[in-house]
């Protein structure tokens, strides 16, 4: 319950949680968990529908974080690429690095991990900048980002007219679909915390 209050810090939640506590005595554990999950989903969406401008701002924060992460990541990769392929000549010395990146297909999982971290960071940034709403404001971003890998796979398949690499290497489709939302939500959960009184009143 405390964890749920952290994810959904609405004062209106108390009566609902009280009802669930009261009814839980004559119901199963599964019913209890289902009700808590329903509270999280339904109340978060209600929060988003009631505050569309805030939801838009949260989504913008998410996209801005992803773009900043990708730009920074691009620079780091460019530097690593030069260091592992000849190196930089600085003050009479060659700065180089051994190529430690794994070969394909292991490199694909490394890239997935790096992207997952970026999505986690976006989720964290959204929750951190909207602490009055808990995890709710991360949901529109989750919905927008969820189809991204599938769309990317479909586009790659159409352009190259071959089976997409993920499918070829037998990666479960469920994992392909679930990792972006899961990463954003995990980051969002880590970013939630007690809102300041100002955050509670202005949001």
């Amino acid at each position, binding site marked *: *319950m405390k964890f749920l209050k952290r994810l959904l810090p609405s004062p209106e939640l108390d*009566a*609902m949680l009280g*009802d*669930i506590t*009261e009814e839980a005595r004559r119901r199963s554990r599964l019913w209890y968990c289902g009700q808590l999950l*329903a*509270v999280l989903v339904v109340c978060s969406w209600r929060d988003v529908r009631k505050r569309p401008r805030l939801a838009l701002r949260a989504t913008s924060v998410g996209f801005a974080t992803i773009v900043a992460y990708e730009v920074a990541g691009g620079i780091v990769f460019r530097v690593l690429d030069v260091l592992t392929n000849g190196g930089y000549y600085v003050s009479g010395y060659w700065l180089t690095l051994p190529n430690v990146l794994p070969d394909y297909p292991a490199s694909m999982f490394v890239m997935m991990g790096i992207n997952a971290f970026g999505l986690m960071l976006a989720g964290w940034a959204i929750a951190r900048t909207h602490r009055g709403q808990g995890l709710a404001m991360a949901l529109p971003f989750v919905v927008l980002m969820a189809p991204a890998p599938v769309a990317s796979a479909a586009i790659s398949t159409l352009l190259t007219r071959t089976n997409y690499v993920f499918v070829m290497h037998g990666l479960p489709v469920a994992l392909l679909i679930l990792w972006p939302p899961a990463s954003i939500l995990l980051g969002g959960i880590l970013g939630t915390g007690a809102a300041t009184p100002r955050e509670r009143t202005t949001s």
Partner: protein
Amino acid sequence: MAGPTSLGTNDLMILLALMRLGDDAYGVPIARELEESVGRTVALASVYASLDRLVERGFVETELGEPTAERGGRAKKYFRITGKGIREVRAAKQSLTKLWKGLPQLGGA
């Protein structure tokens, strides 16, 4: 003559449950009434979401009760149908009755 109703089936069922329960209408008994009607488990969160919409439209009003130990120290939130809500239920009944008239009897229903 009442005008056409804007109530959905869920909203109408909740308003009828509130009318049946009277002063004892809070989340748990409302959900039980609905479960008996539809014959499956109802999520309390969706009941509250519907009630929230009905409150916004002025069909329902709320009042907080006292916190109790069996609810983990949380107060009950009581819901009561307003005059506007009762008029809306009447309008819904009239609309449905009108639609029902002239239909051949539903076999087995």
